[in-house]
């Protein structure tokens, strides 16, 4: 494979690939040219970088550029101002600091309250989201399993799913302020939707009825599993399927 590359062996090449895939050294280019396996490795790393770059791509707001330009013009104008403005600014800053300190106290208290409220609302948010999102057509189940596993692993690399023949992967659901995996399972008694939400696990397993749905919130490692069905038997079967399939590779 690489005997002909005296300057850089495959191990060194792959190490360099991971630290600097655009390395310009002649030995690096030569090795890639002569070793197909390493060239494949390099392409994989570059593809990951490229996908990562694309995943972080956003459009810069046009008005931000305008504001940055305007800011400089305002600075030029302000540069001519005297001490009076500096004193006024200092007074303003002092007042601002006092306000900020007060606001911090209020926010700090509100944060604790907010956490509790958010988890009380979790179920309602999920159900409303599921009602708003049409169930997606069945995907090829191997693809659904693969995608679900990739997503779960991105939350927690120990979290895995054994292949489920009845899994229908839907999509990533922002679900308002929550994020999680949203997928469906086809059972003998109808479809159930399950959502894995990363976060603080709730204390106990909780079954409730909500807007015609039967729901179950099940605390699991690293988050909560929310199951939603129209039929209790479907819920039980889906829950059992998931219990068998979900595991932590630790």
């Amino acid at each position, binding site marked *: 494979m690489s005997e002909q590359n005296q300057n850089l062996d495959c191990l060194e090449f792959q190490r360099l690939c991971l630290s600097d895939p655009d390395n310009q050294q002649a030995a690096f280019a030569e090795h890639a040219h002569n070793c197909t396996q390493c060239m494949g490795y390099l392409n994989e790393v570059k593809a990951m970088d490229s996908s990562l770059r694309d995943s972080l791509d956003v459009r810069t707001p046009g008005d931000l550029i305008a504001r*940055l330009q305007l800011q400089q013009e305002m600075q030029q104008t302000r540069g001519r101002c005297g001490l009076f403005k500096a004193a006024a600014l200092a007074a303003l800053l002092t007042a601002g600091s006092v306000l900020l300190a007060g606001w911090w106290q209020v926010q700090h208290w509100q944060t604790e309250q907010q956490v509790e409220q958010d988890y009380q609302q979790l179920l309602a948010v999920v159900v409303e989201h599921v009602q708003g999102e049409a169930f997606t057509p069945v995907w090829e189940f191997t693809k659904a399993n693969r995608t679900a596993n990739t997503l779960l692993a991105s939350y927690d690399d120990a979290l895995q799913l054994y292949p489920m023949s009845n899994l229908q992967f839907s999509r990533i659901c922002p679900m308002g302020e929550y994020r999680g995996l949203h997928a469906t399972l086809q059972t003998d008694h109808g479809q159930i939707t399950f959502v894995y939400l990363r976060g603080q696990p709730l204390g106990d397993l909780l079954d409730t009825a909500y807007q015609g749905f039967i729901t179950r919130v099940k605390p699991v490692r690293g988050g909560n599993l929310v199951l939603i069905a129209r039929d209790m038997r479907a819920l039980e079967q889906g829950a059992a399927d998931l219990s068998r399939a979900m595991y932590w590779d630790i």
Partner: protein
Amino acid sequence: MSDSGNQTGPDQVNYAMISKKRKYALLIEAHAQDLYKYALWLCKDKVMAEDVMQEAFLRAWKSLDSLREAKAAKGWLFTIFRREHARQFERKQFQYRDVESMDTLADAQIGYDDSPQAFALRNALRRLPAEYREPLELQVLGGFSCEEIASLLDISTSAVMTRLFRARKKMRHYLGVEAAPELGLVKK
């Protein structure tokens, strides 16, 4: 000196020969987009990203005379941004902690690609320890070389390379591309 008529790329401009106003305009033109992506990723919030960016550009304007070389402009600007972000982070730490721990901002709301693959990549990046994540962000988002990252982070180039190696290794592991911790095994 007239500001107009300079047709060279932003990196080739002779900063000693142009006005401060033109220099500032070039900074925005050449680097605002990259910086915004970086800012949004770090701040996880559009308003906050724009605020920190505005503040950073304000500081850049104030010390623009110290910038002599166009090639150094990007690193210089990112350094100012990083310092400003650290300052804001320190000032508003309670807000960020809240946002991070509760995952309150959905990527789709920010404007990121919400495909499962894109989400998994961002999640994997988030999971990296900060010391590995930072150089990777600078390399992938900022387009900086290892030497430039070393200068930005004030560490040696070899340390940067080690961190980048570990960062990508972990990313591949998180994404299920590379299961074995040993180097050089590529899962087919």
